[in-house]
Structures are given as structure tokens and as C-alpha cells.
């Protein structure tokens, strides 16, 4: 039976299929797919192949005609097929070019893997997550290349992981708690301890000195109080939270961590630096082994248990179960069609995993996210941070600081050379939990059950992604981070591939001279194809063959994630999503502006004077920049930071948020009459699509239109700018391929915002703000991260430690349905303006009451808080201020059909 989930066509979604034959016979799973709570899984056959399946098959065939046989091609030994070194750090425009990464590659070319891939088109439209088991032992046995052997050792380490593994073992108390959690709710601590904890939480961003100063003050007034010292409070919180770190040694130059196959080494195999402090070692005759550098991982198991420890927390963490049941209900009623996508749970991958019994009620659904950060600008201070996001929380709660859980911290100064070794402790712990299950005491129903953590997604920005997925990266021949199989084209003699759809005129570069690629025929990733190609790569006999196969398959090394139990993940490459933040907010603006400013590279055979789109130059760029900055007073405060003048600031840390507002908010208006009409119209299609895709809730009909518009944008872009010219292949950056995947990815894993890098960027930001000791920022960062985990766990155990978020400000009135009237309010009634009174009369008459010709005096109110959290202001107060002091928030969107609320009483 063929399914069309992963397919690009959006005409009909067939999100759930009850076909047990796809279930893997993974041993861990076989025993117990018993849905313990509610019967989630509808037993009847739900869907047959939907109409657009035929379309997708047609497209596949079209693609196949364009295949060229690549098996005898000479391979380039340079450039794109090398494992990219990581240059991350996002958020700045400066990096936008490299980050073009996340843009995967379009293409329907099943193509040039002729020799490598048995032609298995059936796999393409299928759900990658459910696939037959892969024998990792057998894969390992194929390997001849040393670096790949090491990668496979990490994979095998995950495969055999248990909580008892010596190198990864928690202390005995923590391990005992993990297996036999206490089955009672903890009472709110005594008053002195409560005061200490409140104080500790309150000084979050301040220093230890602040805590002690306040403590001294309190003790002076209340000497009988037994208020704990900072250090003792800290220990008490660690103890109550039950969170302890896993600490491992690492190379002083950050090359690798001494884990897995490196665990017993005493010298870094990469840089030759010793693991232990040599002076201590010598002085103690080799007895005292003091590591020169360490890194911290914070195991997820105890943190997940904490989420169930209080009845309120446990009730809210069951959002996922409730929502899933609702969605399945909706699907049953609607014959498998969804009205809208508002969460990961709407994605076909998740629903398929539920349907096949891989996810049961009570399981924890996790997203892992990783990013590099520089602690100091302009200084060698790279560090890497991983986080967990728990999808079981409702979307309005899960991305908040108190629910985002740091996973690990890799100190700098350099970028890790072997990232697997740093991921290993976190993933090893996860793998062990996925096999053994987490024993959970659910305070809301006073029961014990076994919860299995499910790794839904693993994300990073483009440069970081190659660490996770082991693919070659965006400039490779198979550059798509979703591994869709489309191959790029490069210039004659060029090293970088670009995901060009249209075949250039007079172009015969071998391996790239396939016909035009149909953007509608691009399929999502296929697990089958990944493993077939991985097998080919692993069985390379020598380096030359390896490089050749790396180029052809687009795989540089096995992803460490293949070592996790298959039934507890969305699989590889299915668990690696897009990165909407970098793609939309950095890479696309960078591409468009470099064209419109005429700053993109111009080949010798090209001529900038013919670039009629390159208008943002000289005086006009300056004027345009001023126009952008001049919009500030018109942008409400709820719109966040207004974009600065790009003509002045674009190279000094122009933020993702600024680009978002500048390009997609203001763009259609600000570029009107500046860009030539056809380029402007093309750009507007992009804006239309992105405005839809970049929402938290996307209606299915809108999604379909967004997809049309985005495909229209990309194909027109090639015609308008690149014009099938070989010397303009570099205009078609990887990001354009990523655009083609945006809408179909929503059907696969839900709206992109659910899994975007915005969250980790934010986490890096707020952890960075907490760093107190510049002398050793890395150790301090780890300490802050551990503290964050402990505090977050504690807040789950005692929800009332969180300050009440619902407090209304003085004088405010809750007028119901989420609306709150806010001051200012007039102290004495003032007469209405006659024309205002006229409008009021019309309103009253429309609502069945007439009040003659009167003009009442009224109490005016200035502000209204809307259900979406925005505050709408009014002309009454705003017009009192000069324009330069205003962030105008008095303009509102109105649905007049909501305007028919009856008036019950006449005016007093």
C-alpha cells in the first residue's frame, strides 16, 4: 500500500493510516503497544490512497525521465563533498550567507545515484518513520574508514545503552529515584525555607552578593529567622529538584569529549594535548588525574519525572494526550482531512507514530535543538548549547523559559571537531530511557506508569545541522537538509552546487545536466533511500571511493541518531526538520537585498549594468534606509523592536526580527514604486506565502495557496534573475530550495514555528545574560544551565513558586472573553463630540434602541488588552504626544460581523 504523506502535493491530506504491516518489529516495541489510557487508535482502515497520489506518481515518472547515468562520472575531489566545518552563530546578518544551509535542494532527480541506489521509487512517498529494522551490527561490519568506524561506535553505543552503563551512570540515589520515584506530592516547605527559595529565585539575574545582602537585612530585622545562606539554599534546591549533572572530561581545545570510543584515551587524538593536568599527574606519581576541562550534560529523565510530581503540573502536561484524542476524533469525523494545522500533533509523522502504537498516552514527546554561540563578540569564545523542548506542554506554555530544559554545554574556545562525543551522554541517557522506560508517578491520578520518551525532532541551523544529520551540507550535490534527493548544478570548474531548477542554456556539466526540475514533483525525505545510500557509503573500501560516494549520496557520515531505538523517533532523516527562522528571517532577506543592492558576485561574463533589478544603490538606498527607520512611530510596541535603518546598520548585527518586519511586514509597501514592477510582484508572492507559513495556526486552504505562491515565487525568480545563465547559477542559493519544502513540511511535522530555532536563540540569549564571572565564562554557563534545570524542575514540583501571571494592574476591568479594559480613564465625564454621539446613535438604533438627539457626557478609557496579548490604544491619549515619542497602537483590525452584540440597557 502506498501512502502519500510526504508528498509535496497538498490537495488532499491523508494523515493517518492504520496499516500495521508498516510497523517495525523492533524488539523493544513488540511487547507493549498497549495504549494504557484512552483508546487512541481507531481500528478500522481509515484511508485509501487519496486522489493526488496519482499526481505524485505522475510527477515521479516525469522526474525519472530526466535521469542521467552518473556512475562513470569523474568526481570532483574538492569543495562541496567535504564535511563542512562549522561556522555557526546565527541571528546576525553577517552570517546569513553561510546559513543558507537549511535550504534543501529541490529536485526530483532520482537520478545520478544510478550505481548507488537501486531504483526504489516506492519509498519516496512513504512515511519515513515506519520502516523495517536496520541491522546496525551488519552496517558496522562494512566499515573500512577509521573516522566512520568511530562514528559507528557511537551509534552502537546508543544501540546497547542502559542506565547501568558505567561511564554514563547517574549517582546511585538519582538512579534509584529514576526507577522508583517517590509516590507523594511534596508539601510546600517551611516558612524559612520557602523564604530562602523565593529569595534565591528572585535574585536570578543578580549576584550571590545580592542574596547575601538581602539575607543580612532580613536577619537584622528578624534575628530569630533561620534563613539559609546562599550556598545552603542552592544545595537544598538541587536536592529537592533531584537534578544532578553528568560530568565528562573533554579536550582543552574542545576537539572532543572523552566519551564512547574516546573514553579511555589520555591524549587528544586530534591535537595531541593531554587530558589531565600534567603537573598534578607528575607530582602524584600518576595517581591524581585532574581533568583539564570538563563539560556538563543534564540528564532528561529526572526532569521529565518532575513534570508529573504535582497534580497541577501533571494535569497540564497531559495537554498532548487530550489534544491527540481530539485530533483523532476530528480525523474520524472528517474522513482524514484537517481544517488547519496548529501544532506538531497535526503532522502526519506524529499521527502515524501514534497510529502504529509507537507513541502511547503518557509518553513524552521531545524536540532536541542545538546551536553555537559566541559568549563575547569578536573574541574566540565559541560554545555549543543543546536544549530539550517538551511538546507535551500546550504551545502557549512550552517555549517559555521555565519549560525549556538545557541539555548540555560545550565550552569553547574552539568548535568541537567530533560533535558526536558531546551529544553522546545526552543521547545515551535518552536511548537507555527509551528502552527501559521512565517510571513516573502521576500526581494528578495517583498512579505509577511507564512513560517512553519519543524523540520527535532534532534541529539546528544550517551549519549546526551537519553535526546532527551527518549530511554533506548545503553546498553539496545533494544539499537538501531534508534529504529529498534533488541534485544541484555547479558552474564548469566550480566547487559549489546550487539547487537550480531550470537547466542553463548551453550547459553540459557532467552530473548536473539533467533537464528542468518540476517543483511540484519534489518529495519529502525517505528513510529507505537514506539507509540504502548509507550502506553504500559505509562499504567504501578506501578514501577515494569514500569521497566519491560521499559526493553521490550526500552523506558524510552516519548520523548518531540512527543509534536510537527506531520506534522511539521519527527516524533518520525524518526527525531533522527545516529551520524556518534562519531561512525566512536571514537567508532570504540576504539573498534579495544582495540582488537589489547589486552586491552579489558578478561573473566576468556577466555585466552589472544589465541588472535592472539592482536599484537599491547610492542615493536611493540611503533614502530607502531612512524610510525604513521612519516607520518606527507607526509600529506598535507589541511589534517588538522596530527595524533600524538598513543603509546604516545592515552590517552591524541586524537582527532576525528586524529583517522579518522590514522584509515581510513593510516590504510590499516600502519596495512599491522602487523595485521595477515585475520584480516587486514576484517578491509579493514570497511575502504572501511567508505570511501564511510563519503563523502558529495555518488553515489548510491557506496552506495550499501559500504553497502555490511560493512555488510561483521560486520558478519566477529563476526566470527573472538567473535567466538560465550558467554565470548566474550562484543566484539560486540553497534557501530557494528550502522555500519549496516549507508548506509540505507543515503537513509532515506541523507549522514551522513549532520547531524553529527561535527558542534556542532565545535560550542562549537569556543564559548569556546570566553569566556573572567573565574570568571563567564557560564553567559559569554550565552552572547557570544546571541551575535553570533545577529551578525549572522545582517549579514543576511546586507550581506556586511561579509568580502569578494573571494579576491585573490597578484600575483595570476584565470585561470578559479575554478583553481587559486598561487605564487611563477620565476622572470626570466629558461631553462626546457631536459626530461621535451621532455614531453612537446609529449603533444603538442598529441594536434596536433609539435615543433621540442627545449628546451624553462619558468616561473615556484609553487602552484595551486583546485576547492575543496585544494592547490597543486610542487617539484620545496618543495624540497628546509628539510623533517621535509614540509607537502608534491605536489602529486595529476589525471583524464587523462580530459587531452584533445586543445592548441590554439604555444609557444611564
Amino acid at each position: 500500500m502506498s501512502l502519500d504523506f510526504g508528498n509535496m502535493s497538498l490537495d488532499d491530506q491523508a494523515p493517518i493510516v492504520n496499516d500495521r504491516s508498516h510497523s517495525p518489529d523492533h524488539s523493544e516495541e513488540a511487547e507493549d503497544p498497549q495504549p494504557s489510557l484512552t483508546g487512541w487508535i481507531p481500528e478500522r482502515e481509515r484511508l485509501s490512497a487519496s486522489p493526488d497520489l496519482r499526481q505524485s506518481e505522475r510527477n515521479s515518472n516525469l522526474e525519472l525521465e530526466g535521469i542521467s547515468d552518473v556512475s562513470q562520472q569523474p568526481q570532483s575531489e574538492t569543495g562541496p563533498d567535504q564535511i563542512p566545518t562549522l561556522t555557526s552563530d546565527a541571528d546576525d546578518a553577517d552570517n546569513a550567507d553561510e546559513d543558507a544551509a537549511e535550504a534543501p535542494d529541490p529536485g526530483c532527480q532520482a537520478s545520478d545515484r544510478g550505481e548507488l541506489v537501486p531504483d526504489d521509487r516506492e519509498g519516496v512517498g512513504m512515511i519515513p518513520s515506519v520502516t523495517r529494522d536496520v541491522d546496525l551490527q551488519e552496517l558496522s561490519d562494512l566499515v573500512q574508514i577509521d573516522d566512520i568506524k568511530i562514528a559507528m561506535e557511537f551509534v552502537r553505543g546508543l544501540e546497547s545503552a542502559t542506565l547501568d552503563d558505567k561511564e554514563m551512570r547517574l549517582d546511585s540515589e538519582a538512579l534509584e529515584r529514576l526507577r522508583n520515584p517517590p509516590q507523594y506530592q511534596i508539601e510546600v516547605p517551611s516558612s524559612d525555607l520557602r523564604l530562602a527559595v523565593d529569595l534565591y529565585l528572585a535574585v536570578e539575574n543578580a549576584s550571590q552578593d545580592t542574596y547575601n545582602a538581602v539575607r543580612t537585612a532580613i536577619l537584622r530585622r528578624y534575628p530569630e529567622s533561620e534563613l539559609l545562606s546562599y550556598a545552603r539554599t542552592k544545595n537544598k534546591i538541587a536536592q529537592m529538584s533531584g537534578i544532578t549533572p553528568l560530568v565528562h572530561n573533554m579536550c582543552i581545545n574542545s576537539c572532543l569529549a572523552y566519551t564512547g570510543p574516546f573514553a579511555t584515551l589520555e591524549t587528544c587524538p586530534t591535537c595531541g594535548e593531554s587530558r589531565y593536568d600534567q603537573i598534578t599527574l607528575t607530582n602524584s606519581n600518576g595517581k591524581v588525574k585532574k581533568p583539564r576541562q570538563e563539560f556538563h550534560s543534564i540528564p532528561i529523565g529526572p526532569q521529565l519525572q518532575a513534570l508529573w510530581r504535582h497534580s497541577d503540573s501533571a494535569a497540564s502536561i497531559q495537554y498532548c494526550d487530550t489534544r491527540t484524542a481530539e485530533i483523532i476524533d476530528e480525523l474520524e469525523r472528517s474522513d482524514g482531512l484537517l481544517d488547519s494545522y496548529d501544532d506538531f500533533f497535526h503532522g502526519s509523522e506524529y499521527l502515524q507514530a501514534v497510529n502504529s502504537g509507537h507513541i502511547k498516552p503518557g509518553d513524552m514527546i521531545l524536540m532536541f535543538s542545538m546551536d553555537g554561540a559566541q559568549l563575547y563578540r569578536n573574541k574566540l569564545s565559541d560554545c555549543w548549547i543543546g536544549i530539550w523542548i517538551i511538546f507535551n506542554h500546550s504551545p502557549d506554555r512550552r517555549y517559555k523559559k521555565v519549560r525549556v530544559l538545557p541539555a548540555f554545554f560545550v565550552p569553547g574556545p574552539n568548535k568541537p571537531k567530533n560533535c558526536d562525543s558531546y551529544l553522546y551522554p545526552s543521547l545515551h541517557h535518552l536511548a537507555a530511557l527509551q528502552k527501559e522506560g521512565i517510571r513516573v508517578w502521576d500526581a494528578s491520578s495517583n498512579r505509577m506508569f511507564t512513560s517512553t520518551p519519543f524523540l520527535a525532532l532534532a534541529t539546528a541551523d544550517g551549519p549546526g545541522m551537519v553535526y546532527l544529520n551527518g549530511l554533506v551540507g548545503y553546498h553539496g550535490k545533494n544539499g537538501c537538509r531534508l534529504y529529498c534527493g534533488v541534485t544541484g548544478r555547479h558552474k564548469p570548474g566550480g566547487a559549489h552546487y546550487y539547487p537550480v531548477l531550470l537547466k542553463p542554456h548551453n550547459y553540459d556539466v557532467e552530473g548536473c545536466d539533467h533537464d528542468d526540475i518540476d517543483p511540484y514533483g519534489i518529495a519529502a525525505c525517505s528513510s529507505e533511500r537514506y539507509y540504502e545510500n548509507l550502506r553504500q557509503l559505509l562499504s567504501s573500501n578506501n578514501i577515494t571511493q569514500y569521497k566519491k560516494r560521499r559526493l553521490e549520496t550526500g552523506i558524510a557520515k552516519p548520523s548518531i541518531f540512527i543509534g536510537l531505538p527506531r520506534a522511539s523517533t521519527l527516524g533518520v532523516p525524518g526527525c531533522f526538520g527545516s529551520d524556518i527562522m534562519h531561512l525566512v528571517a536571514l537567508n532570504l532577506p540576504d539573498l534579495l537585498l544582495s540582488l537589489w543592492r547589486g552586491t552579489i558576485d558578478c561573473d566576468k561574463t556577466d555585466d552589472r549594468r544589465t541588472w535592472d533589478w539592482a536599484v537599491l544603490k547610492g542615493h536611493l538606498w540611503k533614502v530607502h534606509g531612512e524610510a525604513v527607520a521612519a516607520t518606527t512611530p507607526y509600529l506598535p510596541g507589541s511589534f517588538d523592536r522596530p527595524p533600524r535603518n538598513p543603509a546604516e546598520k545592515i552590517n552591524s548585527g541586524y537582527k532576525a526580527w528586524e529583517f522579518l518586519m522590514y522584509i515581510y511586514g513593510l516590504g510590499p509597501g516600502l519596495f512599491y514604486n522602487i523595485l521595477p514592477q515585475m520584480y516587486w510582484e514576484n517578491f509579493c508572492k514570497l511575502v504572501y506565502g511567508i505570511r501564511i507559513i510563519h503563523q502558529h495556526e495555518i488553515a489548510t486552504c491557506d496552506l495550499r495557496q501559500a504553497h502555490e505562491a511560493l512555488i510561483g515565487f521560486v520558478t519566477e525568480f529563476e526566470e527573472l534573475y538567473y535567466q538560465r545563465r550558467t554565470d548566474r547559477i550562484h543566484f539560486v542559493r540553497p534557501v530557494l530550495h528550502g522555500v519549496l519544502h516549507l508548506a509540505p513540511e507543515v503537513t509532515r511535522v506541523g507549522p514551522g514555528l513549532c520547531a524553529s530555532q527561535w527558542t534556542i536563540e532565545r535560550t542562549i540569549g537569556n543564559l548569556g545574560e546570566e553569566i556573572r564571572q567573565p574570568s571563567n565564562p564557560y564553567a559559569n554557563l554550565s552552572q547557570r544551565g544546571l541551575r535553570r534545570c533545577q529551578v525549572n524542575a522545582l517549579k514543576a514540583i511546586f507550581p506556586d513558586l511561579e509568580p502569578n501571571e494573571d494579576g491585573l494592574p490597578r484600575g483595570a476591568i476584565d470585561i470578559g472573553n479575554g478583553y481587559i479594559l486598561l487605564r487611563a480613564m477620565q476622572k470626570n465625564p466629558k461631553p462626546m463630540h457631536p459626530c461621535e454621539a451621532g455614531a453612537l446613535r446609529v449603533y444603538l438604533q442598529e441594536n434596536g434602541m433609539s435615543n433621540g438627539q442627545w449628546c451624553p457626557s462619558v468616561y473615556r478609557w484609553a487602552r484595551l488588552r486583546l485576547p492575543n496579548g496585544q494592547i490597543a490604544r486610542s487617539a484620545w491619549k496618543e495624540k497628546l504626544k509628539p510623533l517621535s515619542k509614540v509607537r502608534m497602537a491605536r489602529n486595529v483590525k476589525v471583524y464587523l460581523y462580530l459587531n452584533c452584540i445586543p445592548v441590554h440597557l439604555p444609557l444611564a
Partner: protein
Amino acid sequence: MEFAEVQYYLRLTRENTIAIVSMYSRPDPILLKASHHTLWSCSYQGNASLKVISTEAIVGVVAMVPLFGVQDRYFVVEKPGLDIAHMRGDDETIVDED
């Protein structure tokens, strides 16, 4: 869908709070179409288009930005990805004002 400038809010009764607004004109249809529905441009009409609406008809705050080079013409900007700030816990803070 319409856009309006709020003059002020008023409690008619305990159950009924209204806003006195000035409605913007309907959008320029040619620009709207050419821009793939991304450029909604309209005119400010001041007291000539005052209307009373129920507060519950208000669904969001937008920006009305002057259209470059055209007198009294504005275009609408809705907050793209409102949810980003919302998701990361950065709801607009309410400041006391008198």
C-alpha cells in the same frame, strides 16, 4: 475585514463596552491584486467615518504606515509571526498609566 483607528473606549453598560473608531477606506483594489494581496492601502477619513463598534469586534493591533510619496495614504502591516514573541513568553507588559 476592516481597519480602523480607535478614538477611545467606553463602557455603555456593565455588559457592553464599545470603541469609537474612525474607519479607514476600502483598499485600493489594483494594488491589492498586483501585490498578491500583500499591499492593503487605504485612506484615513477622520471624523467623516466615525463608527461605534463592540470591543469584541477588535481582533488585533496593526500598523498603518504612510505609503511613501502618497498623501494621506497608508498601508497595513500586521505583525508577522505574532507568535514568536508570544511563544517565548514576551507578551507585552502592562504598564500603569494615568
